């Protein structure tokens, strides 16, 4: 069977340092997967490999059954995979609306054309407006992205990521740096806008992980040591030992369960 996203023995070295050490992962279409793990475990590197920011040292990546390792980021994006960034990565000197319109242009087939006016592209404008409503920035339509608040910029980051219509979405710590109340609102937003899509998200906040994910992948030292439902992962002794330090680490386990 074909998976939405499949990694086969993926490895990445930076010089002599092995960052990703043989990751295998198979994600079904429509699944929501949270990737957790201690700092420096290689979660972000994994995203960078999948999205084409870096090429893997060895191993294979399949998107809907097609090889995408060693392809350029824009090629991977055109094949239906889109990602957001941990550090906000938007177009600061363009307005909110322009940010989103740029993000929908390729998927609507406008490519590099300079023979059509943007104002005449009804489908692109409508779609950009739709996503602007979805991420609740419709009142900030003509504000430059650099003048938005942090939470608004994070929402725009997600908006740009989903606007291209990709069916596999990678979110790299979408709630990083947000307050508790902002995070709660933001999670419902993410659930809403990624409805029916395959979602992979790197996340530190356990509340977010258990609220959002169908499955959890635990990455430790560049390897996936567990990939299962949240309940199974929580009771997995290997996870408890590797990820939480010792099996008897009461407070840490509490942390996991607190998010339930």
């Amino acid at each position, binding site marked *: 069977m074909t998976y939405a996203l499949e990694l086969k023995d993926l490895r990445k070295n930076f010089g002599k340092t092995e960052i990703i050490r043989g990751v295998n992962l198979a994600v079904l279409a429509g699944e929501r997967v949270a990737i957790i793990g201690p700092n420096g475990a290689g979660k972000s590197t994994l995203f960078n490999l999948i999205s084409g920011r870096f090429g893997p040292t060895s191993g294979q990546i399949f998107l809907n059954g097609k090889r995408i390792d060693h392809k350029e980021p824009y090629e991977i*994006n055109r094949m239906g995979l889109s990602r957001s960034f941990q550090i906000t990565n938007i177009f600061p000197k*363009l307005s909110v609306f322009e940010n989103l319109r740029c993000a929908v242009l*390729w998927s609507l087939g406008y490519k590099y054309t300079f023979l059509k006016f943007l104002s005449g592209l009804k489908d692109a404008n409508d779609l950009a407006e739709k996503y602007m409503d979805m991420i609740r920035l419709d009142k900030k339509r003509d504000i430059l992205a650099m003048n938005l608040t942090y939470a608004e910029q994070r929402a725009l980051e997600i908006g740009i990521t989903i606007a291209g219509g990709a069916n596999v979405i990678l979110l790299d710590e979408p709630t990083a740096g947000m307050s508790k109340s902002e995070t709660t609102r933001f999670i419902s937003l993410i659930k809403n806008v990624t409805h029916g899509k395959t979602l992979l998200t790197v996340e530190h906040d356990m509340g977010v992980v258990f609220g959002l994910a169908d499955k959890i992948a635990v990455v430790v030292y560049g390897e996936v040591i567990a990939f299962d439902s949240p309940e199974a992962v929580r009771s997995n002794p290997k996870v408890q030992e590797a990820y939480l330090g010792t099996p008897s680490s009461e407070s840490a386990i509490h942390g996991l369960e607190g998010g339930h």
Partner: protein
Amino acid sequence: MATYTFKPYNVGRWIIWGLFALVLGLAPLVFTSNLSGTMLAQMGIAIIACLSYNMLLGQGGMLSFGHAVYTGLGAFVAIHALNAITAGQSSVPVSLLPLVGGLAGMGFAVLLGFVTTKKSGTPFAMITLGVAELVFAMSLMFSDFFGGEAGISANRVAGTSVWGITFGPQIQIYYLIACYTFVCVALMYAFTQTPLGRILNAVRDNPERVEFIGYNTQRVRYFAFIIAGFFAGVSGGLGALNFEIVTAEVVGTGRSGGYLLFTFLGGATFFFGPIIGGILMVLAFVLLSEFTKAWLLYLGLLFLFMVMYAPGGIASLIMMNLRVASFGKLRQIWVSYVGLLLTALVILIGAAAMVEMVYHLQLNSALGDNLKFMGVPLNAKGLDSWFGASFVMLTGLGMFELIRRQFLTEWSDIQIEIEKEIKRREEA
């Protein structure tokens, strides 16, 4: 940095373009002297060149040090085409020669741009510099095409004339240039409103992210470079027709530097900035250079101050003050503006007197130590002249600084008031 967007109202847009056409049409009727006639023609040419350059710099974030390669090669191809018409080998009407130049500029941009746009940022700037040097070196080697030191000359009265228009008289060539200027400015503005134009802005702002929304940034830069090359070539072709001579200097790095400098002075962040830049360029090259031998020094100083204190160029200064004016707050600071202007003038007079004395010592010392500056006799080796000049300058500086501080507080107060006003309107 102040930021705001220029909102195009459709009625306003018609008025602006109508006025632009009117100015182009009426300018030679208002400024009738010979000198102003040639200057107006050159302004049209410079406007197209600077706008095409800004497609790279302001819209694409590409700092090119070699834009004159495309205006210059366009000019050479156009003048060879003109000579072919004169020799009866070609039947292209003279009025279409700028397009020949444009196609040439585009062709060279296809060829050379493929290499330069492989990179962005600093490597891009370096490669354009290298290409510019390469082409200039070639201009000295291939004298058949570039005409050696004498350049290539031609006569623009060639081929068959339509309705008695031979393009011989300056006024006829002016109107040809004016038509091309209007159409090119309109087309380049239209470009900013297309998908490629907008993605080019995105590439300027954040090339990495563009790769993750499906666009190949290299391709975007390359296409923009080719289009900019076309308009640069049109400008070169018009220049060839206007001057009837093209020398190797037009592909030189000095010319490229001029485009960069004046596009920046005019303002790279707004579409109309380079139009101001083009006009200033001709004023500086034709008038200022007549006025003083030290004109390049003054120009360099002006550029320096602009980069440091108004990096958005004159266009951004205009837009900032328009914003203040639209909130009816300009009358709160106009006194400071007058004060700044007067004291700046005092500084300039003092500094210019010293510059002129230095230049006099270096260049005209055979004529003695005495010179006249703005009607005042100065002795370039006299202590009193130097003391007087530095006294004027320092007094100006002191007063300028005082007024500047006053102005800054007023300015920031006004900005805060405007922010409050905007919030209030949003809530209402």
